[in-house]
């Protein structure tokens, strides 16, 4: 295959990685919580889309919208049950609380869906441009990702509720003094984060097979991207996703594929050490 083909594949997937990481970075930025249930929610997004498509015959792109709503609700419930009580505790508590949620979801998911791989059998055809073959599902997923990013920015910078989210991010105590109901804003922000994770899962399900355990890989990628793009910076997450996608596209051209995670994680640790605010700078 030509390097250009590798690059295009990587870039298109990179957009979706960006959406997944945006969910993680939003929660991290707003409430300083690293959501360790991120991966399992991505997996739930995949399964939700699968059942909407296979059992109810709903078009996957309408399915993604339903998945988004479900993801938002699920996140708000998780916040109320598991996070709110420990939001001001040392970070170990929130890490373990979200990890406990992860265990519960994976445990129930494994029982309900087993760990055998599933596949959403859906195709939009493909277009060939020179040496590059563009798969329809991946192009749509990339476009959807750009659209979602734009919508998120519109929400954060052009609506009152978005302004509340930004205020709580900057200074929760001051925001409360201004009469902003911070608990509800935090719940909404957590819901938005899980919504993005679930949507990313749904989009990934349209072109890759998956199991209930697949989320873990994307969670680790999201960490790498968050740090690349700067914590709490949604646009940074999208760029970080593109950088990671590009790496994943290009590295197999020079080295065996199994070296990709080695380079990814070494890069991750090095960036944490050299520029913990990310390549593009953290929000704040």
């Amino acid at each position, binding site marked *: 295959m030509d390097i250009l083909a590798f690059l295009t594949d990587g870039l298109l997937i990179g957009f979706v990685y960006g959406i997944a990481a945006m969910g993680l970075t939003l929660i991290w930025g707003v409430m300083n919580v690293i959501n360790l249930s991120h991966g399992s929610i991505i997996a739930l997004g995949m399964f939700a889309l699968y059942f909407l498509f296979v059992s109810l015959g709903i078009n996957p792109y309408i399915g993604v919208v339903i998945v988004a709503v479900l993801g938002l609700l699920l996140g708000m419930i998780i916040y109320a049950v*598991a996070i709110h009580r420990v939001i001001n505790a040392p970070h*170990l508590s929130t890490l*373990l609380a979200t*990890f*406990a949620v992860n*265990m519960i979801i994976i445990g129930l998911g494994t029982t309900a869906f087993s760990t055998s791989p599933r596949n959403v059998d859906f195709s939009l055809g493909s277009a060939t441009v020179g040496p590059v073959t563009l798969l329809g599902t991946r192009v749509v997923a990339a476009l959807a990702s750009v659209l979602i990013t734009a919508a998120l920015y519109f929400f954060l910078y052009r609506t009152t509720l978005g302004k509340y989210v930004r205020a709580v991010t900057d200074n929760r105590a001051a925001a409360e003094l201004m009469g902003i109901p911070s608990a509800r804003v935090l719940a909404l922000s957590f819901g938005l984060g899980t919504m993005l994770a679930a949507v990313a899962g749904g989009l990934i399900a349209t072109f890759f097979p998956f199991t209930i355990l697949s989320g873990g890989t994307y969670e680790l990628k999201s960490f790498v991207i968050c740090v690349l793009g700067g914590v709490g910076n949604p646009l940074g997450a999208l760029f970080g996703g593109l950088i990671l996608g590009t790496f994943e596209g290009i590295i197999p051209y020079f080295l065996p594929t*199994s070296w990709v995670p080695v380079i990814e994680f070494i890069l991750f*640790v090095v960036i944490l*050490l050299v520029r913990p605010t990310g390549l593009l700078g953290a929000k704040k």
Partner: protein
Amino acid sequence: MSLTKLRNPGLWITVIAVLLLGLWPIVTQRASTREEIFTVLLSVVLASSLNILLGYTGYVSFGHIVFFGLGGYVGLYLIIVQGWSLWPAMAAGGLAAGLLALLLGQAILRLRGSYFALATIGINEAMRAFINNFEPFGGPTGLSLNFQTYNAYGGAANALWLIYYIVLILALFNIVLSYVVKTSKFGLGLMAIREDEDAAEVMGVITPRSKTWAYVLSAILPGVVGVLFFFKNGNIEPPQAFRLHMSIELLVMVMLGGFGTVFGPALGAVGYQRLRGLLLTSDLFKNIQLAVAGLLLLLIILFIPAGAVGWIRRRFPILRRYLP
């Protein structure tokens, strides 16, 4: 460190409790009981080690299992490829883990809070991916022990007992070590870092050095038991050696028992493994054991964040002397 400190009744209660647990399979001579207690003692060593970094110093390591895996790999490589015997291989495994911690410590202990936790995940994953490509360690297939190797230790059956005794001794040693560290000036410095790192520095604690030594101290024994575990197991593969899930189980054990206490991690390790065994063997919970364990963890985090020992210490101050 004066010897009078070692007269603390709480330390000896912990040591005797673990010793009794460890002697049980030796008395009954049942292999199945031995296997069960072996897992528990292994967890005691790993959780108590993690506690030195997590409980005393307040640094959350999500990838502590990297030392267990690396120690196991170095030890098995020396035994299988270089023909070393178990004893020097154990020492080498511990040394390798300690060295890795020393090198890493210089770099990543500068990070605070969640950033440190994430870096430890990154290091564990990088190490696993690297070993997966590292031919001397067998790449993705790992290393396998020739069954004849056990003959030097009186056959496989005897070798299993030998390994059991060593792990029991290491578990007891680790508890005494935890206690000695906690009651020393060095330990006081670590706990000062946990409460407020900047204030500790102002008060004269040389924080980078203290943190690094705490990290090294918490890495050596996992390296040693890594060698023992995989020697007993007979083979080692990257996904087994660097299992992130196991790292987090260790955190759960420390939280369950009470972090920052000497008895807590041991109690947490026993409690967690016991519970896991019960859930795995019960018909009702067999399939959803992970979910039940998760729910339990959530309840502990939300309602008893200090863990069992921490809760008792707070509730019954009179018992503090007996629960260091």
